[in-house]
């Protein structure tokens, strides 16, 4: 018996190695981003990176200010959230509190298919259908705009928000609802004033997942929002996001080791830090504000 157990030691070690490989991946990401970006920051000061208002690494008169790219990312994310958060929350409340059980079992997986569609297909959708449609509604809207990219991105994110929020609302015990009904509250009143507050941590985590998805989304913005860095907060204009810039440089033929090549790692590091902050915030919210019943 003991010998058999000893023979299994190597197996356990192999399994552990597999589990530990996930840590190695994170280490790999951090290692690559930091080493390449550190070469970048040897040439460009941190101050210039954060305060310069232009991003033109491909021009002869090169400027390396990340601001325009961050602005593009924030605006497209903002538009996407303006679509996804209200829509996703209402869908979650409807599915959890109003829809009959059978209907919910059908609608939920159907909605989740929305996030299964490849983002490149959404990119095509944004440029071939949504943008021309919006141009008819809003005169002077350019074909490439953060608005059309953001709206499509928002629809893609709806299931992330609605599914997680609905899970959180479903976990609220029936007793709370019954107590509310017993006091004479309506269904809507119970949903908004009892169920939602009780599921707040789950809903918050769902929102944050949506935000970090929107920040990191690449193909939709690369196709539909334009590739030109543009320091603006106006969603009607085209502008490149951090992700779109990385795609644009990767499509070109930049030599390995050139400063343009390293600039995508500096941009990637910025992106990684931004999403990391949201992921940690989501983790804290889930841990700290978890309502226990």
């Amino acid at each position, binding site marked *: 018996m003991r010998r058999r157990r000893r023979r299994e030691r190597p197996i356990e070690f192999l399994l552990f190695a597999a589990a530990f490989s996930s840590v190695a991946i994170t280490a790999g990401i951090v290692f690559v981003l930091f*080493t390449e970006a550190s070469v970048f920051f040897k040439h460009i000061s941190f101050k210039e990176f954060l305060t310069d208002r232009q991003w033109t690494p491909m021009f002869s008169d090169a400027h390396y200010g990340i601001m325009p790219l961050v602005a593009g990312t924030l605006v497209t994310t903002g538009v996407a959230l303006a679509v996804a958060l209200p829509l996703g929350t209402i869908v979650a*409340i409807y599915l959890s509190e109003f829809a009959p059980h059978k209907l919910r079992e059908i609608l939920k997986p159907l909605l989740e298919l929305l996030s299964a569609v490849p983002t490149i297909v959404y990119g*095509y959708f944004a440029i071939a259908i949504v943008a021309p449609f919006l141009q008819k509604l809003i005169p002077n809207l350019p074909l490439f705009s953060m608005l059309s990219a953001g709206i499509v991105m928002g629809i893609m994110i709806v*299931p992330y928000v609605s599914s997680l929020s609905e899970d959180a609302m479903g976990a609220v015990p029936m007793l709370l609802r019954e107590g509310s009904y017993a006091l004479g509250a309506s269904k809507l009143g119970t949903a908004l004033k009892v169920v939602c507050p009780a599921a707040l941590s789950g809903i918050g985590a769902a929102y944050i997942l949506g935000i970090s998805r929107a920040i990191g989304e690449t193909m939709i913005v690369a*196709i539909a929002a334009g590739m030109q860095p543009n320091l603006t907060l106006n969603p009607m204009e085209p502008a490149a996001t951090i992700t779109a810039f990385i795609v644009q440089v990767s499509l070109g033929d930049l030599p390995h080791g050139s400063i343009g090549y390293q600039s995508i790692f500096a941009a990637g590091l910025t992106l990684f830090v931004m999403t990391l902050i949201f992921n940690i915030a989501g983790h804290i919210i889930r841990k700290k504000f978890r309502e226990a019943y």
Partner: protein
Amino acid sequence: MTDFKKFTARRRREDRIFKVIGIACTLVGLLTLSVLLADLCWVGLKRIDWQFLTSFPSRFAERAGILSAWVGTLTVMFVTAVAAIPLGVAAGVYLEEYARKSWLTEIIELNIANLAGVPSIVYGLMALGLFVYQFQFGRSILSAGLTLAVLILPIVIVATRESLRSIPIIIREAAYSMGATKWQTVVHHLLPYSAGGIATGVIIALSRAIGETAPLVTIGALTFIAFLPPSPVTGTFPFVSFEWLKSPFTVLPIQMFNWTSRPTQDFHVNAAATGLILIVATLAMNTVAIIIRYRIRKRIKW
């Protein structure tokens, strides 16, 4: 009394109004999906024919095809599956069955949760620095497959863990009481019982990998490939060749991206056709996963 009746009537009306709003919001999502599908069919369906499937890309839209793209997608997916499934399942088994509570386990778990939130393009940058240059795999099918494997690893791990967790503890206790070792319990009982759940997770993970574009752009997928990777079967000894792993690659989403970003309309037709193939493939994979999950839930009653 009439005041009270009016009050409750108003509340009921609010409930009904919200119900309508809720249905409308749900429909927005579903309608978008249907419009998207309808448009892809309308524009792209007639473009999908034998010529389209068996031609290389071309400067002329009507002569272009997706032969190198779908062969690329299949080979890259093969590498991804071979790398991600054993690794992910092993990691899941370790975390669920072997790991004792320790700071190391805690770090691994936290890390997996965080990896799932890292944007896919960041994985691409990692792969560019590590696989393409550090390990000298080049801009190849091998690099692409490994990149996507790394990307879907968290999904496979989480699916494995969840499906192991749903097996009641009595199964393990029964196996131990018959003198089985831990590994025997895992191989003879836990893995077979959780195979359906793991399969669901793997299919969903692969359906995500099949549509991934951004990380493959960063590691340098080519958009114009007019050749196929060398055959894995050769006429001379040892009859198997892994040369194809080092071959440059393109995949369906990359090809679609290339056609979508061209200004002329006729290339958009090709893009729509490719998109239709992609979306049908991913939706089909997801449907299979949903059906498997549904049947497991119905059949297994511990």
